């Protein structure tokens, strides 16, 4: 899997939730999915989008964790909270700019996507990106994506003053270099 990267293209998503159903099959979080699929506005549209952990280079969730329970490995994958350490305070839930971590109250544990560490570490692709029928979620070599897709992968996000670089790539229009999420960034500077 050397050189394989994780790409997300919400515009391809058909809302089938195959990713969620497959994620829940994982032996490390049995029956529970670490991925979310949402209708953006069902009353007005059929558009849906998947949310997986973006695996930030400097993960906000880890920075705000008072128990030091969230670790980023050398492979760049930000792991789920460590079981004995996590105090289920939900700081990470509030801090994550992408809305990824979930605290499971009954387990008193934060759980989130670890990019199928158990699979990728033995040469298998992550479950969700393997099954996704539209390939809105894709795990593959970057040059293949470049050849096959019209959109362009981006992994720099600007949240106001905060810049976040992620391991996971988001497909964006070809003229976009980073994705700016804060209204303030679009306002006329003098105001």
């Amino acid at each position, binding site marked *: 899997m050397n050189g394989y990267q994780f790409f997300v293209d919400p515009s391809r998503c*058909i809302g*089938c*939730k*195959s990713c969620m159903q497959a994620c829940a099959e994982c032996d490390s979080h049995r029956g529970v999915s670490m991925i979310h699929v949402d209708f953006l506005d069902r009353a007005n*549209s*059929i558009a849906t989008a998947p949310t997986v952990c973006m695996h930030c280079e400097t993960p906000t969730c880890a920075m705000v964790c008072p128990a030091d329970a969230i670790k980023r490995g050398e492979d760049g994958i930000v792991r789920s909270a460590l079981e004995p350490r996590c105090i289920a305070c939900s700081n990470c839930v509030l801090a994550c700019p992408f809305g990824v971590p979930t605290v499971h109250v009954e387990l008193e544990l934060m759980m989130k996507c670890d990019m199928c560490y158990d699979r990728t570490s033995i040469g298998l*692709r992550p479950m969700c990106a393997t099954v996704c*029928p539209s*390939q809105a979620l894709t795990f593959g070599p970057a040059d293949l994506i470049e050849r096959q*897709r019209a959109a362009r992968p981006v992994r720099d996000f600007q949240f106001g003053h905060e810049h976040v670089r992620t391991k996971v790539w988001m497909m964006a229009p070809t003229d976009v270099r980073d994705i700016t999420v804060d209204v303030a960034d679009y306002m006329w500077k003098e105001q």
Partner: protein
Amino acid sequence: MATPPLSVDRLAEVFGPHRNYEPPGGWGDAARRPDALVKTHCSFCGMQCGIQLKVRDNRVVGFEPWEAFPFNHGMLCPKGVKRYLQGAHPDRLLSCLQRTDAGFAKISYERALAETARRLTAIRDQYGPDAIAVYGGASMVTEKAYVLGKFARVALGTKHIDYNGRLCMVSAGTAYKLTFGVDRATNPWPDLATADVVLIAGSNTAECAPITTYHLWQCRERGGRLIVMDPRMTPITRNADLYLPVRPGTDLAVFLAMLHVIVGDGLVRDAFIRDRTTGFEAVRASVAEWTPARAAEISGVRPDDIVKAAHWIGETDRAMGLHARGIEHHSKGVENCLAMLNLFLATGNVGREGAGCMMITGQGNGQGGREHGQKCDQLPGMRDIRDPAARQYIASVWGVPEESLPGPGKSAVEIMEAIHRGEIKALLSMCFNPVVSLPDAAFTREALSKLEFFGIIDFFLCETAHHADIVFAGSLQEEDEGTVCSAEGRVQKINKAVDPPGDARSDALIICDLARALGRGQHFDYPGGTRDIYEELRLASRGGLADYYGITWDRIERELGVFWPCPTLDHPGTPRLFADGRFAHADGKAHMQVTEWRESGDPADATYPILLTTGRVVSHYLSGAQTRRIGPLVDQCPEPRLELHPALAATLGVADGDWLEVTTRRAALVIQAMVVRTIRPDTVFIPYHWPGQRSANRLTHRTLDPRSKIPEFKVSACRLEKVAPPLELSTWRREETGWGAPASGDQRSDLPRSDR
């Protein structure tokens, strides 16, 4: 009288549907570590995705994507992901059952066979063989479909055998045979990615054939354009370049107008028409009056969008069409398909990479299940049962006199109507749940109650089985082997993962044993099991349209599927039809057909002003007999909801989540509203996977297409009224009651759950 012995609620307590959430043995590592990974295919739609089932201790405990399979590369929809939960299910029938006054009692397999044979023989002796009908299904492997067709004609001698594909592919099949001479999609699926334009008409592709979206999105990445024609914006519409919001039942008008534009604006490929088709002059004349303005009046699609779509298709030599039940479930379903094919023929867009028009088969084995003899008018190899040469050949393969083979029988809905009239007295059914899937459900229940004998082969006690006298515990797809043919026309191998549990048996074996019990065992002697049935099928298909002769099981395994026709062992198979310039008719030409506009069979009027259309959701399969038992799939869509536009909702004073009564000329049902802007304001939609009070098919009607005999599921006139929520949701959810003993007087079934 084949009425259920207990109220449906009581039956449901014992036989389900219960929801299964956990793999057998639970989530623990020990129970989940597989002894074996079995390469096979998903059973839940015509995509027939390759999948690996994890097997431990003779139970399917999970799945692993099969990335090497060339069609889906490991991709699966949620049904494929969770399909393993249907095995080792608490509702699984583990023994044969006989109806008693108190419920269903367990009986031995031998007694079930003897009793069924005795009753069928008595009815045949009294009323003649055609008083018995057989129902099959297109979700089972081709070997079972084949042997069931042979059983009806050779063991029972009845002409009445038909299958649930009658509710699925027959309009398209009829049209393709008329036009192309053969009933199969023209191109392999990856061709879609190479097209410049794809017209998708009447197909909720993303929910009903999910893997197809991969190819369509690849098409768009290359700059290809998608035209989507549907009364609803289904998920595929999110990336449509042109959306045509057609009024239900008026697709034909749009196709006719598109051809009008193609003719009028000089987009016809004259050389192609001259060399490769017949009938164009009459077709051209028939569209002369069909201006876009006239079609717009009827269909509600803008005239300029009709012109645009026609030009997109006509201006390229790489246009493809995809269609499914949306244009086929109509009393003019065949016309709709014929008119769509005419667009692609007129513009020369057939028979090349990136050019063709294709139906999307819906059922697990929708293609293979209709090719080899369980259709009332066909013999194996897609042969016409009226063709003397075909009859002679099949009779010789089967070792019976040609004159002993019955002629064409009644189609599925017609069989139910003949049962209702009392003409057909006995029914043997396998892989079909007509109580949920046939139109006008109350009529179906009435009809079934009149049967003198009803035998069923199934793995769960589906709603229809409530009426059965004898139930055989049959096999799930993973409990037997055989072949299926995917929507692409690729013949694939289903491998056995586990043995049938308890006293359940392979369906094919049950049929052969039943033939023996009827004294016709000499024609059903397959010592090598299903493989022997396949070897006979290969021979029976030889020289037919769907020629499997060159396709052996070993070749399928080695080559990961072989496309028919494949007449010899060294033939490579035929992924793309007509590439050699010849169509399948004797003259090598495509026969273009004139189509005439007519109204649908249940038109709107002042009393019933709104159009009801029905269809599927991604997490359920057909009548839901399987998927309503798989917990995670039920959670994804637990109940049907009625989709309606805010403009219509406003006239009714209805908000999202309110309750509505929907009334058609046949029945009424109460359902929760889902207010969305993604449907035409004159149309409402209900998914059809549920029985009883939630059954969309209580509302639908029995008007059939005169040629394909498909029911008109896609358009019924209705009216809507806001009502108070049902006092208790459990009352609403309750299935039909009032059958058998009164609910209060019910005794418990004599069969405790643990003893099934």
